[in-house]
């Protein structure tokens, strides 16, 4: 019996084999290969040469990398709170079942299914100087038009607006799902407890969905650190690299200048930054909820 038990234990492992194979080939292997590449001077056309941490040194002193890093951090610091707050606001506003709210939920979510090319095309129509929507509006209002896509500061802002518009569907849906899990009798108890709408929001609703707020924040931190398509297509990182994100830097170094080792080093640094940011968010939230326990 012990023998058959041991054998059945071993064969149980076969059930996870398909997943494990895909995981190893598509995730684990590239991760380690990336680390290996980052330690070599390599250009995709021939065998690489081991250079230790030299690639990391080159990346960290590269002013273009530092500028892209700053751009990306600013972008994440602004876009993630906006996505969380706006997603929560929309979810609260649409958390009832009428035909209108169902329609609006679909409408707000619909932008998420568009590809980045369509999204940037739409927002180019809005921001482009001369014939863009904002240019026409400022002309009608006799205001000096801003050249959103090619003015330092405004270009990253424009990318941010398009990104929030594109990404708002998921946070909204996650928040809606969480809101619908809150038992209605908590709200009834709050009504009998004379709680104002603001007190209900801050003392009942938000604490009840704290875990979802953390989840949305972590997902968005991870996603927004990987900003690329919108910046590439709307501003091409310009002007003067003021809207160039880290992934675009990696792309340019790796695929335009063929310095694959350096690009891999930058990728590993981005990976570490995302890991630390997401973990920091998690640890802070966990500590907060522990402190309140």
């Amino acid at each position, binding site marked *: 019996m012990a023998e058959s038990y041991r054998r059945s234990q071993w064969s149980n492992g076969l059930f996870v084999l398909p997943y494990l194979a895909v995981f190893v080939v598509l995730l684990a292997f590239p991760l380690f290969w990336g680390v290996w590449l980052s330690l070599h001077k390599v250009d995709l056309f021939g065998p690489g040469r081991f250079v230790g941490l030299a690639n990391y040194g080159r990346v960290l002193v590269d002013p273009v990398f530092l500028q892209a890093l700053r751009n990306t951090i600013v972008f994440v610091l602004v876009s993630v709170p906006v996505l969380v707050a706006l997603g929560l606001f929309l979810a609260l506003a649409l958390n009832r079942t009428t035909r209108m709210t169902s329609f609006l939920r679909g409408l707000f979510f619909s932008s998420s299914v568009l590809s980045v090319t369509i999204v940037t095309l739409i927002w180019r129509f809005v921001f482009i100087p001369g014939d863009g929507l904002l240019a026409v509006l400022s002309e009608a209002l006799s205001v000096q038009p801003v050249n959103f896509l090619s003015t330092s500061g405004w270009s990253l802002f424009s990318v941010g607006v398009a990104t929030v518009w594109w990404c708002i569907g998921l946070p909204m849906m996650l928040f809606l799902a969480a809101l619908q899990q809150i038992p209605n009798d908590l709200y009834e108890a709050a*009504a009998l407890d*004379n709680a104002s709408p603001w007190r209900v929001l801050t003392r009942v609703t938000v604490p009840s969905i704290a875990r979802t707020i953390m989840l949305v924040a972590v997902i968005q931190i991870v996603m927004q650190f990987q900003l690329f398509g919108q910046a590439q297509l709307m501003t091409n990182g310009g002007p003067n690299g003021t809207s160039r994100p880290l992934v675009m830097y990696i792309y340019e170094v790796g695929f335009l200048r063929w310095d694959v080792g350096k690009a891999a080093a930058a990728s590993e640094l981005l990976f570490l930054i995302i890991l630390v940011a997401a973990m920091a968010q998690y640890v802070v939230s966990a500590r907060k909820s522990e402190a309140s326990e």
Partner: protein
Amino acid sequence: MSASIEITDVTKRYGELTVLDDISLSIRAGEFVVILGPSGCGKSTLLRMIAGLEDVTKGSISVGERRVDTLPPGQRGVAMVFQSYALYPHMTVAQNMSFGLENIGLPKAEIQRRVLQAAATLEIAHLLGRKPAKLSGGQRQRVAIGRAIVKEPKAFLFDEPLSNLDAALRGRTRLELAQLHTRLGSTMIFVTHDQVEAMTLADRIVILHNRRIEQIGTPMEIYQRPASRFVAGFVGSPAMNFFPVESATSNGEMLTIQTGGLGSVGAVIRPPSRFSLSGASLGIRAEDVTVLPAGQPGIPLKAEVVERLGDRTLIYGHLTDGTKLTVEADGRSEARSGDMVQIALDTSAIHLFDAAGAAHHGEGG
């Protein structure tokens, strides 16, 4: 502190569906009223309308001298204990209890005084720092009551608060609620479908059935002089025995009723002159039927199932014509299933119901 509650001609409709129809009820200050009824009779809806969680379609509700049915829940001066307790899961016990008081801007010292006092009363002072997830069902139940007490409300509303507790705890909490009522002297309205809770807790019971109040009375009135066949069948365990009336003759004093199975039964009941026999039924409770000692002549009953409950024995059987009858016999009864026993009725405890269900009782019943 406690206040009377006046419910006048209250109707509740959801679209075409009428849930409560023209309900009127006066509750005295300090009274413990239990609203009893089967599932779906609208008893919780009535309680929620008093609390302000449901709108009143028609009619009015007053607490004390003040009409409240147009006020928001928090301003009605009532506190409610929910079936699910509805404690705020992310707040500690102390925060749960003080939340309502903070909302009305009570000074911190006063809030703390009330919370500590209520916690001492309910013996939950050692739990004040814990969150609901770390409490047992019984402890949560006390916190929910504590949250109501600190508000010093004019009336307490309980929505089946014992139904989530196990049997032993339910019995103990029932006793504690009765003691709490004596100590606080507050008006309490308690909704339940459990007749034991109703009988043991209530000053008066309100029986709701089919959108209307079927009967209002003390537990003994409800049990001994049920106003309708529904009440007679709903209250009491085992349920009352009913027999169709075939004919009846009256000699002015005594009514002789002919039923299938029981044969001819004499009862001291004076039904109204317009009483119609068609559809009428006779009712008698199991404890008003006695098993005669062997050898004495009576009505023969074939015992099918015998339940021995220790202090009493329930005999479920059928009469010669197949009519079912339940008898409550002594705990020491030796009847076994399959036995043929002789029974007798206490004719003073017979109830007569007309086709519409209205009851007529004997003088002794």
